């Protein structure tokens, strides 16, 4: 166990969900919500708490797409590439954002930890296609220009908040 790491948050989450195997996914979801990713330190700790092997926790964490072992940005931008968005041209939006943020298919988070750019298979908001979400807020009928503008204003918002 890492002595530097503050486990009090994790303790609260584990107790809130129950110390049992069937709670593992909801525990991981809550941890990810708090830290915006799954810190390595939690694996041995959680394995101990619900009495399963560390490998088992790791297997769950790596199976589901929503879990990330790398820190995510303050703004998680998800471009929908479901069928409806795809036929209404979602890929140009993704490409524009990648070039604006200097990201690629491999590199999904900016170095300043401000933005993470992902695709999602369908947000079920097909009536508004193409859509993207920023931290679960849905933006409808997006164009590459609107997306650039959005990222710009989010960056300003963050700088403003920091100042």
């Amino acid at each position, binding site marked *: 166990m890492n002595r530097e790491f503050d486990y009090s948050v994790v303790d609260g989450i584990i107790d809130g969900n129950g110390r049992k195997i069937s709670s593992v996914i909801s525990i991981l979801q809550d941890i990810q919500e708090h830290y915006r990713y799954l810190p390595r330190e939690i694996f041995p700790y959680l394995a101990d708490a619900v009495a399963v092997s560390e490998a088992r926790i790791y297997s769950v964490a790596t199976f589901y797409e929503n879990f990330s072992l790398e820190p995510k940005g303050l703004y998680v931008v998800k471009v929908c590439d479901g069928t*409806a968005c795809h036929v209404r041209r979602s890929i140009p939006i993704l490409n524009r954002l990648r070039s604006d943020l200097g990201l690629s298919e491999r590199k999904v988070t900016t170095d300043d930890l401000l933005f993470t750019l992902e695709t999602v298979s*369908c947000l079920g*908001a097909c009536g508004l296609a193409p859509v993207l979400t920023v931290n679960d807020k849905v933006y409808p009928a997006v164009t590459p220009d609107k997306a650039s503008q959005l990222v710009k204003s989010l960056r300003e918002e963050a700088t403003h908040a920091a100042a």
Partner: protein
Amino acid sequence: MLLRNREELRKARSVYAESLEKQRLKILVCAGTGCMAGGSPAIRDRLLALLRERNIACAVTLEKEPHGADVGIKQSGCHGFCEMGPLLRFEPQGWLYIRVTPDDCEEIVEKTVVNGEHIPRLAYRADAGVFERQDDIPFYRKQTRLVLEHCGQIDATSIEEYLAVGGYSAFEKALFEMSGDAIIDEVSRAALRGRGGGGFPTGRKWMQVKRQKATPKYLVCNGDEGDPGAFMDRSIMEGDPHRMLEGMMIAGFAAGASEGYIYVRAEYPTAVQRLRVAIRQACDFGLLGDNILGSGFDFGIRINRGAGAFVCGEGSALTASIEGKRGMPRVKPPRTVEQGLFAKPTVLNNVETFANVPQIILRGSDWYTGIGTKNSPGTKAFALTGNIVNTGLIEVPMGTTLGEVIFDIGGGIRGDAGFKAVQIGGPSGGCLTGEHLTLPLDFDSLKKVGAMVGSGGLVVMDDRTCMVEVARFFMNFTQNESCGKCVPCREGTKRMLAVLEGIVSGNGREGDIELLLELADTVSATALCGLGKAAASPVVSTVKYFREEYEEHIRNKRCPAGTCQKLKRLRIDPALCKGCSLCVKTCPAGAVTGEKKQPHTLNTDLCLRCGACIPVCRFHAVVEE
């Protein structure tokens, strides 16, 4: 308010009905995901502020002792007409305002709320003129909204409103007047079939669980609607959560289960939040918990959020995920009805199936079988998306033809393009073409032509859509989502994707089509779960109906729809080219040559088809063909 017995439930229902009745005007602000993204919460806030400013008594919840609030403001579920959002509906007039903005609110309060006037500017318009009433709009006129009857009609976050319109009457009837067998018998006679895709008889499933000796028994609602282009279940969970809970309670009572689980996609945060509210309300009212309404029946419902795995829509993967494991399917038998969740007998149905149950119990199987077709009674909700005029959520009787859905309700194809195909049933489904416009949409007719109802996503494609690219898109999806447990799906989808990628990028070879079909055959015969078995369906179906498009890509390296980037041919129109030579400087391959001030030429053998020359040309002389 805890209801302790049947009488108290009935009393509560009549109190809330009266309270609802007394509202002179009801404003239903659409709070479906579509309209919320379009800004409907701001509209609701603005309306509330304006009404308060003018001292107009308005209520956001139903009162226990009706004083007769003047105006009721409600967050309704999805009206379905997402294309026109944000939507506002007025009762009792039945007016619908479309594309409302907060700036319109002042006028709405002044004219509609205070003076009772209609504002034609905000109404839906079509060739035939202005449509005041929502029900008169062609998009709605051809629909039969049973499952979605409350979506857009009542407040989605209020158990009081659900009770006011007769909610939990079916559960009450089941609990106090029917035995488990009688309920199952009614559902069986109604021939309700699973709305999640397979179309398995629901009554038979419940009976199989009821007969199992092992205890406890579980009930699971599959809300992991993962098919791209499908959002029916989302709209039910968000728009009428109590109806689904009521269906689950009836099923739980009938099959002898005391614990229910709802598995919802992580991508549906609003649905999770509305369901949480609904469950809490049902517990507070004593409709969930121990000894419900004094009947001796105990039932509780929990929510599990998915974590982003499409395969969890498959029954055994879904139960594994609830158990806290990797969501991977297992070999069957034993089936879910025998050993499902925690290896106990489990009823597993999808959202729409449960939402059908209350009306069957209340109005009887004879009424239900009068709707739809003989072998597929009832209605089906479809999500209409893609290159169609009226995107949105619709509900029609089973057996409605594809043409009626696309042209009468959907309003036809967007822009000046023609109809090409419809992808139905998502990545496990197939495509339907012009020859199927008279085909009735029901479980058996669709199966016969190699497609399936699936969850109900209808993605309409116009004649500028490349069908090979569509097949590649779905294969890419399935390959990404393959859980990797069985070899046929894991490797087979990879191979099929590689072949399809080759074809769309101009590297197709003779024999590719045959190879695809052979792979498709093997994967569907040997994959472990339904998702793997159906993985090749989009390929098989596009080859069946659009084989010449595949051949054109492979033999002539040409994309007839003109969408495959790598197969595009660029040319410089000499009539437009002024010889400024900007394109010469831009071209990374040195494919453009020509003297200054003379029309340039583009060497297609050297051209990489990157398209870099297109935006730099101020004279639009670079043409794609």
